[in-house]
């Protein structure tokens, strides 16, 4: 039993709230958090917070009937309500930090962005290679593996698809129509998407492809993409957050965006423990980083456990400027070994599924993918289902119920509630939490 502490939850992750409250041995704060019919959030905190130490758990993902931005606004409103309700200190607990990845629009050498068309047809039919190619005449369906066989074609003949529609997720004809069509909208602003009516599209292929393609920066101007990370940090502090607890920030630099203390917990100990207890002969396995950016994360685990390490590197050649279809190169040896892919976040699942494909081709016997945040948006689940990944391990920083139901035994979920429960307890009592960064 912890005194003088209030744990308040948003709508994004009720299961985590319950487990954290269980661990702390106290009930969650009563509150009403819904929406008015006008779309404005309605928040009423029903228990007193005066002089209390308030922890608000809200993860940065869409779901549970609301969108990511709704959850974020709810969080700000709750923080502000607690502040005006004379809370002594308000801590925002964001297991998965929203807007932590800086946007990475693929750029051509000329500075113009490379947008890709979404797969308009066969949205239910995926192969693990279902990266929609840039719709250009004559672009091969899988430009990625320049030196490998195109598995897509073979997979088309297997029973991966559900029997209806076209077999290939990216039809060449789509691309053709695209460029020949005159009906591309020239308007710069499209109406907001209808709530809850998000079609399937992948991260870098946007909802309304026609207006994205029509969008051109003024000549001579390299377009400016909003970087929302700093803004989100400032909005949280502006709402009144005195402290932020999060986990495995994509860029640790995000910590520096805040003027208030940020505790960036690590999911690494959980992943390590999983490797030790669930992967037989893990000492002979190879830890793989699916891209150069994650090398540091992966080496930290490899070094800590004395396991070999390899890295996948995307070769962006002069001829293939398309980053998603860039050819991948493995640095290291994985032949006849068990591979453990380590990354902090999987969103569309492109990186890990493509990495897995490459590893299989290089002779890996079994592929595990260990991630902290399994966002799995768009068509990620279907892509992972069809991929060469044998076992996917994620934490429940984002609700995994749906994903678990879809992926079944392929997905293992690690519980982060004990880490967050302990962090909240320690922060509340003013104890050091650095032990949480390193315990094994």
């Amino acid at each position, binding site marked *: 039993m912890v005194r003088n502490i209030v744990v308040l939850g948003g709508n994004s992750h009720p299961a985590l709230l319950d487990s954290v409250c269980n661990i702390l041995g106290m009930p969650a704060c009563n509150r009403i958090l819904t929406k*008015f*019919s*006008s*779309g*404005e*959030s309605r928040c*009423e*905190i*029903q228990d*007193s917070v005066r002089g209390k130490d308030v922890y608000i758990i809200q993860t940065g993902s*869409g779901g549970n009937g609301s*969108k*990511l*931005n*709704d959850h*974020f*606004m*709810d969080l700000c*409103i*709750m923080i*502000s*309500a*607690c502040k*005006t*309700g004379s809370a002594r200190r308000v801590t925002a607990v964001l297991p998965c930090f*929203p*807007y932590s990845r800086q*946007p990475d*629009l693929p750029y051509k050498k000329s500075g113009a*962005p490379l947008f890709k068309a979404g797969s308009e047809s066969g949205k239910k039919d995926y192969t693990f290679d279902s990266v929609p190619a840039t719709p250009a005449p004559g672009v091969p369906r899988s430009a990625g593996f320049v030196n490998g066989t195109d598995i897509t074609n073979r997979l088309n003949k297997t029973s991966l698809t559900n029997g209806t529609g076209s077999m290939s997720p990216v039809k060449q004809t789509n691309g053709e129509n695209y460029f020949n069509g005159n009906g591309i909208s020239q*308007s*710069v*602003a499209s*109406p*907001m998407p209808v*709530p809850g009516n*998000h079609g399937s*599209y992948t*991260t870098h292929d946007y*909802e*309304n492809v026609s*207006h*994205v393609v029509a*969008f*051109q920066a*003024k000549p001579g*101007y390299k*377009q*400016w*993409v*909003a970087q*929302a990370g700093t*803004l989100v940090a*400032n*909005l949280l502090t*502006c*709402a009144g957050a005195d402290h932020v607890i999060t986990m495995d920030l994509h860029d640790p630099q995000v910590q520096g965006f805040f003027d208030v203390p940020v505790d960036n917990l690590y999911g690494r100990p959980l992943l390590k423990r999983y490797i030790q207890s669930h992967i037989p002969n893990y000492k002979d396995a190879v830890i793989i980083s699916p891209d150069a950016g994650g090398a540091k994360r992966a080496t930290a685990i490899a070094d800590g456990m004395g396991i070999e390490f390899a890295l996948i590197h995307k070769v962006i050649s002069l001829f293939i400027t398309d980053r998603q279809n860039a050819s991948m190169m493995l640095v290291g040896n994985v032949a006849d070994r068990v591979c453990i892919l380590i990354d902090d976040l999987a*969103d569309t699942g492109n990186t890990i599924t493509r990495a897995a494909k490459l590893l299989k081709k290089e002779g890996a016997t079994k592929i595990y993918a260990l991630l902290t945040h399994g966002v799995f*948006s*768009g068509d990620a689940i279907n892509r992972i289902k069809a991929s060469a990944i044998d076992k996917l391990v994620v934490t429940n920083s984002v609700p995994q119920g749906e994903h678990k139901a879809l992926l079944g035994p392929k997905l293992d979920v690690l519980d982060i509630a004990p880490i967050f429960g302990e962090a909240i307890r320690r922060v509340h009592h003013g104890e050091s939490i650095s032990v949480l960064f390193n315990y094994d």
Partner: protein
Amino acid sequence: MSAEMANEIKLISGRSHPELSEKVAKRLGIEVARTISLNYSNQETSFTVGESVRDEDVFIVQSTITGDVNEGLMELLIMISACRTASARRITAVIPNFPYARQDKKDKSRAPISARLVANMLQTAGANHIVTVDLHASQIQGFFSVPVDNLYAEPSFLRYIRENFMAEDCVIVSPDAGGAKRATSIADHLNTAFALIHKERPRPNVVGRMVLVGSVEDKVAILVDDMADTCGTLVKAAAVLKENGAKSVLALVTHGILSGNAIETLNGSVLSALVVTNTVPLGDKVQRCPKLRVIDISPTIAEAIRRTHNGESVSYLFNHAPV
């Protein structure tokens, strides 16, 4: 680039109300800046500016989409922040319908003052100036430490009434005590009678009993309010007015939020017309509701932008609606 071109108006449109932005741009004789807003598949909002805003006078038009306010608000914040980091000289957020304007006071213990939170957020994002229309409570201006120009739809309404009715046939009615000031101001300008409906409101979005104060017999009763949300109040008020002998009842409302079953409620009501401005995107509601009339507010907004940019007084617009 010549010197006089160095600081011009850059009109940026959010996704909530592109029609209004287009109208404002047309009125100003400029083009809406090339920008694009999207949602990634993980639902994060992305915004890209396709032309230079360095040292320009940026006006960002973003209204609220009924049912999806937070999405538009986050988009606006991201747009402001992007322009700020892209070295805009001044950023004015043009928010015809201010979101969370009704959550402006701590009416219960631990109730959030979300309007103030929105005000703080806008300033944190980097807004230097706010232009809005008919704030629910003008005190919201006090939540800001940057200038707020609160424009009025009143001049447009006055013109509408003068063009369509004989002033002596009308009674201006406020559907609640809070809107009495707004209604009396219109009644004074037209030199007509005024009445008030007193209501009890047990829960939000639910309307209680209503009592008419004043006489509307054999007159055209004109209900005046700042927003029509579920329209429960308006429709009940209209029924009360009809019962009290009004010849016909219409309503003049600035913000047609029209959420929930508003359209069905309106279609089944005794209201002869609901006149709203286009501060909020109406979508197909005009087709679905034959009683809905729309007054274009874009001339007022465009003129406010022009005057703000040129450093002229905006107060002329408080009493006059540009044609």
